């Protein structure tokens, strides 16, 4: 990332036309301010994280021992489905959008997002969509129970009534994401401060630019596939119904054409965050900036041609399996480049280990472990033994929890002082980190073992030989779950109290956002800064 000399000793809100924020609930309902909207996205995401987390604890409580103790199998299936949907669409994605909203304008020297009113809409339809989705828990037949991947015909012919509301909710979330993505691209391409060329942008901005293009490419395909479902269920079509000449496997192809880029949508901003944090705390510039940009672009491009690695057991002919195996393995190359570059940034730097850095380092290690299990899964013949077992569950939880979620926590701790003007309580931050680190590993590492030993996914009860590691995982889940109360406490406390934070906050921080006072004023960069 380019170092930036900004010719402003301290920025204060100089524009007489801007007032402070409005008062009362109206402020939040009608705001077009990127900071307000960013905060709303982040708070929403945190609430959804807790709800999805409670569902996870219900799952892990039932799986603590063999036998059915707490819930019926049909409700268990509702929990696994809703946990997945809420975490993917309600926690991870909105959190990244919230961070984008807060940080992108400040990082590129823009006063706000390109389309502030659409920005407000993009947020407010989300709570509406999730209200619909969550209310399905109370409908006759219960909530969606066909997995977050909702394969047909389980999700069409055999679905509960709530499937229609599920489809409606997905359409709304998709619209929110698409609008957000359009806004982000327009902002990044058109509103950078003079002198900030594309190759001088912070990496968080780059990863979001690429993620936004992915969103525009694939969220509409998701909308397409749920519309086809809707048509099969209510209008007598047979996209996925063999009776009418359709094909359930077509569903999987279209879904995963969306689904694979979707998982990169959930990780690329994380890469960006880590690429900001490590240089700050190593006091050394990010190693290989251009390769980092090209690596993210290659990962995004490759993500379009690997989708069928989620379908290795569906009955594909040899040629198809080989192609998707090779393409999937290839993604390890640019991903490896990124990991090496992060380490090279740390190498011969001068590191300190504040909370954001702890989360970032844990990300690099644990995401890489998730990457290794991903590489194993890519090996098609071996995948016949891994597919639909807990080995897959272990893999994607490693890349999503100590991957994406840790990066979101890292970003929160990193930028909170900028948002609130208060320094972090390092002791409490580290406490949250260590509890989470221990919890996450106790929960998900044993899942590799039970998966290899033969335990399938999405089952509420299991054979006796899987009991020991399952009880371990359940204990870990409760540790991890309750640790997040510390996170919430830390955030609330930081909003309320704390030592005054300087503009730069962290000794090694570079970037336009660190030239602004902490807390950042309601309106910033009304006049664009000059960037060398």
């Amino acid at each position, binding site marked *: 990332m380019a170092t930036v000399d900004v010719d402003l000793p301290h920025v204060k809100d100089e524009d007489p036309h801007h007032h402070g924020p409005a008062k009362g609930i109206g402020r939040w309902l009608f705001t077009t301010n990127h900071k307000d909207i960013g905060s709303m996205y982040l708070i929403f995401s945190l609430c959804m994280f807790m709800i999805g987390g409670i569902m996870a604890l219900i799952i892990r409580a039932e799986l603590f021992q063999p036998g059915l103790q707490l819930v019926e199998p049909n409700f268990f299936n509702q929990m696994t489905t809703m946990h997945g949907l809420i975490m993917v669409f309600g926690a991870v994605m909105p959190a990244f959008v919230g961070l984008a909203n807060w940080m992108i304008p400040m990082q590129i020297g823009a006063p706000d997002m390109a389309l502030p009113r659409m920005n407000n809409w993009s947020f407010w339809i989300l709570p509406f969509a999730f209200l619909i989705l969550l209310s399905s828990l109370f409908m006759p037949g219960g909530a969606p129970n066909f997995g977050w991947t909702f394969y047909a015909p389980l999700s069409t012919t055999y679905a509960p009534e709530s499937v229609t509301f599920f489809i409606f909710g997905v359409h709304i979330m998709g619209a929110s994401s698409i609008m957000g*993505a359009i806004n982000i691209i327009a902002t990044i391409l*058109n509103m950078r401060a003079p002198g900030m060329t594309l190759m001088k942008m912070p990496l968080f901005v780059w990863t979001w630019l690429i993620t936004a293009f992915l969103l525009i490419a694939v969220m509409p*395909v998701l909308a*397409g596939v749920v519309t*086809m479902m809707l048509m099969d269920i209510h209008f*007598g079509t047979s996209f996925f119904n063999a009776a009418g000449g359709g094909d359930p496997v077509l569903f999987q192809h*279209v879904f995963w054409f969306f689904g694979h880029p979707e998982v990169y949508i959930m990780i690329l901003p994380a890469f960006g965050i880590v690429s900001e944090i490590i240089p700050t705390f190593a006091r050394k510039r990010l190693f290989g900036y251009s390769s980092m940009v090209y690596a993210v672009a290659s990962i995004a491009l490759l993500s379009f041609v690997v989708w069928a690695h989620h379908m290795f057991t569906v009955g594909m*002919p040899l040629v198809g399996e080989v192609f998707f195996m090779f393409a999937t393995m290839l993604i390890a190359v640019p991903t490896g480049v990124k990991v090496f570059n992060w380490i090279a940034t740390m190498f011969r730097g001068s590191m300190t280990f504040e909370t954001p850095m702890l989360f970032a380092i844990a990300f690099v290690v644990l995401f890489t472990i998730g990457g290794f299990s991903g590489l194993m899964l890519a090996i098609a013949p071996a995948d016949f033994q891994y597919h639909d077992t807990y080995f897959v569950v272990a893999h994607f939880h490693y890349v999503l929890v100590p991957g994406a979620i840790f990066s979101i926590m890292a970003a929160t701790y990193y930028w909170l002082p900028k948002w609130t003007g208060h320094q972090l309580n390092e002791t409490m931050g580290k406490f949250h980190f260590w509890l989470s680190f221990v919890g996450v590993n106790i929960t998900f590492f044993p899942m590799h073992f039970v998966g290899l030993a033969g335990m399938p996914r999405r089952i509420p009860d299991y054979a006796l030989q899987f009991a020991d590691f399952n009880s371990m995982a359940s204990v870990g889940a409760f540790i991890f779950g309750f640790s997040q109360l510390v996170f919430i406490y830390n955030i609330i406390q930081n909003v309320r109290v704390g030592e005054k934070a300087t503009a730069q906050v962290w000794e090694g921080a570079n970037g336009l956002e660190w030239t602004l006072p902490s807390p950042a004023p309601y309106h910033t960069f009304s006049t664009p800064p000059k960037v060398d």
Partner: protein
Amino acid sequence: MQESVKTKRLVVRLAASAVLMFGFGFALVPLYEVFCDITGLNGKNFTQGPAAITAVDRSRTVKVQFVTVNPAEMPWEFKPTERTMRVFPGEDKVTAFYAKNPTPEWMVAQAVPSVTPSEAAQYLHKVNCFCFDRQPLDAGADTEMPLVFVVDPELPKHITTITLSYALYDLTEKDHQQVTLRSQDNDKGRASL
């Protein structure tokens, strides 16, 4: 301002891309079919109608197996009259499938074929198949439904067994909503809806 014009244009283009990708999602349906047709990847691209095959290859035999499946709620009896046939590639063969409607009502069924291994599908010519048409049966009636087929001599040598499966679906309700047509256009046993 220049910037807002640029922005507006960009936003329109991005929104148009989103709409295009929605269309692309739907286009994946025929694209998938075309792709499967050309490559035979989903085991459903049998050719239909008379095959322009002149020579019979008597240097090898291919085992052709017939399998039937009754999907949920289809009460008919449905089974092949011959389970296995050994055929010479290029030779026209005839077999039949037995079906009986044990219910007290007239019903209509549609057989949906599927072949494994999928590479073999394009070499299996169905000259005439009961799966081309809907099959009506009166209450309590039974019938033998014919299949005339030929295995293409171009079938790769490493394939020695082909299994042809039929899933028999109940289309009685759907049929009541439409005129029953005998349709040679029924593509891959697809019911027109």
